[in-house]
């Protein structure tokens, strides 16, 4: 396979995994923020934005400190499971998941808060437990909003550069994602390759953004209920 397609497929693999991991975490945190009141909730809400505002290299550095061979989590992972994350595509997944999950978190929280609580109450009165209420009422009504967040997270994960480079490096075919390959191609003066890579990633991003904008926050969750 041509290097550009190798890099694209690796990028897609990393971004898909990162979106899956970040999606589950983001949906869970979004639900907690929308449904519970606890002291310091606003602080937590702001802290969750940190991955969006911190330079990715700073996040990468934090990650190195945590999951590197001598990091707290990294040392434990190595001694317990024999897992190394540094310079692996799984490490790149962690980096991409961390920078992208706030998108899911934000949109999931907003989408969950849009769901009229009376639907959930009606379901409880009809005999459903909390898990069933979530999967049969809350999630289906919030789904479009969450999906928009997931698509943004996927795009962000696809474009991730700094934190990924810090933690996974740039090993062609193993950890060299598209965005890193662009940098390497420019550095090496391979303009034709760089052009090709840039075109691929631009088209992918545009397609995803158009899809995301079509999924504007759903109003279906409150359409037939007046204000209380």
């Amino acid at each position, binding site marked *: 396979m041509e290097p550009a397609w190798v890099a694209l497929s690796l990028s897609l693999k990393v971004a898909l995994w990162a979106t899956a991991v970040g999606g589950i975490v983001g949906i869970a945190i979004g639900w907690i923020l929308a449904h519970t009141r606890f002291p310091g909730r606003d602080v937590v809400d702001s802290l969750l934005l940190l991955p969006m505002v911190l330079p990715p290299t700073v996040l990468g550095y934090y990650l190195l400190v945590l999951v590197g061979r001598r990091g707290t989590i990294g040392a434990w992972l190595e001694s317990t499971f024999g897992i190394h994350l540094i310079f692996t595509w799984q490490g790149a997944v962690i980096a991409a998941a961390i920078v992208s999950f706030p998108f899911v978190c934000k949109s999931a929280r907003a989408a969950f808060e849009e769901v009229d609580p009376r639907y959930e109450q009606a379901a409880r009165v*009809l*005999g*459903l*437990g909390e898990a069933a209420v979530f999967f*049969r009422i809350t999630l*289906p*009504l919030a789904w479009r909003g969450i999906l928009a967040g997931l698509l943004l997270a996927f795009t962000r994960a696809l474009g991730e550069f700094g934190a990924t480079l810090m933690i996974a490096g740039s090993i062609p075919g193993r950890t060299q994602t598209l965005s890193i390959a662009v940098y390497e191609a420019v550095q090496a003066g391979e303009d034709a390759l760089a052009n090709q890579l840039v075109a691929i990633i631009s088209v992918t991003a545009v397609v995803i953004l158009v899809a995301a904008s079509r999924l504007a926050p759903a109003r*279906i*969750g409150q359409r*037939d209920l007046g204000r209380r």
Partner: protein
Amino acid sequence: MKWDVRIARRMGRGERAFDLDVAFDADASRLVLFGPSGAGKSLTLQAIAGLLRPDAGHVAVDGQVVFDQASRRNVRPRDRHFGYLFQDYALFPHLTVRQNVAFGSTHGLTNPSRRDDVARVSEWLATFELDTLADRFPEQLSGGQRQRTALARALVAQPRALLLDEPFAALDVPLRGRLREELLALQARTGLPMILISHDPVDVELFGERVVTIEHGRVRP
């Protein structure tokens, strides 16, 4: 059915706080909670259903305690087995009429399918003349059809009593009269006990085997 309700709950804080302090005993199959809007009728009904936790007091139905602050007993709404009709019916907007009606017939993690054909569901759909509308979504229904769907949804779950929050307020006047008669006939046929909230004296006249008047969060003696 014997209702023994004695509940207190403070809503909000400071100057805008609202104190609900309602107590009544009633032995009736048709009980009307009557009073102006904002008096605390809905809060009372929510507390009976388990959707609002009182700060103090108790709720007992036919001698069975479903809430008692002193002994920290608070039966979950799903285990109280009441049918609840919300003011604007709260039909699930992502489900068809049939799925809405069938909702309480299964308690698992997935909704009943659009083609599910449970006998109990079809019977109630037929009773309320909803069979031709079974594949529509709530937003495609008229007010009266929504109310019937909500009633059928509550009845399929086989409740021991119906709690109705202003069931006719969202309907225009001619329809109101018809649906009142339907509900009365249903009650007479099934014998299902009900509590009905209303600010309309006509409902008191028709449904009030026993009437509890609530004003400013308290029962008027």
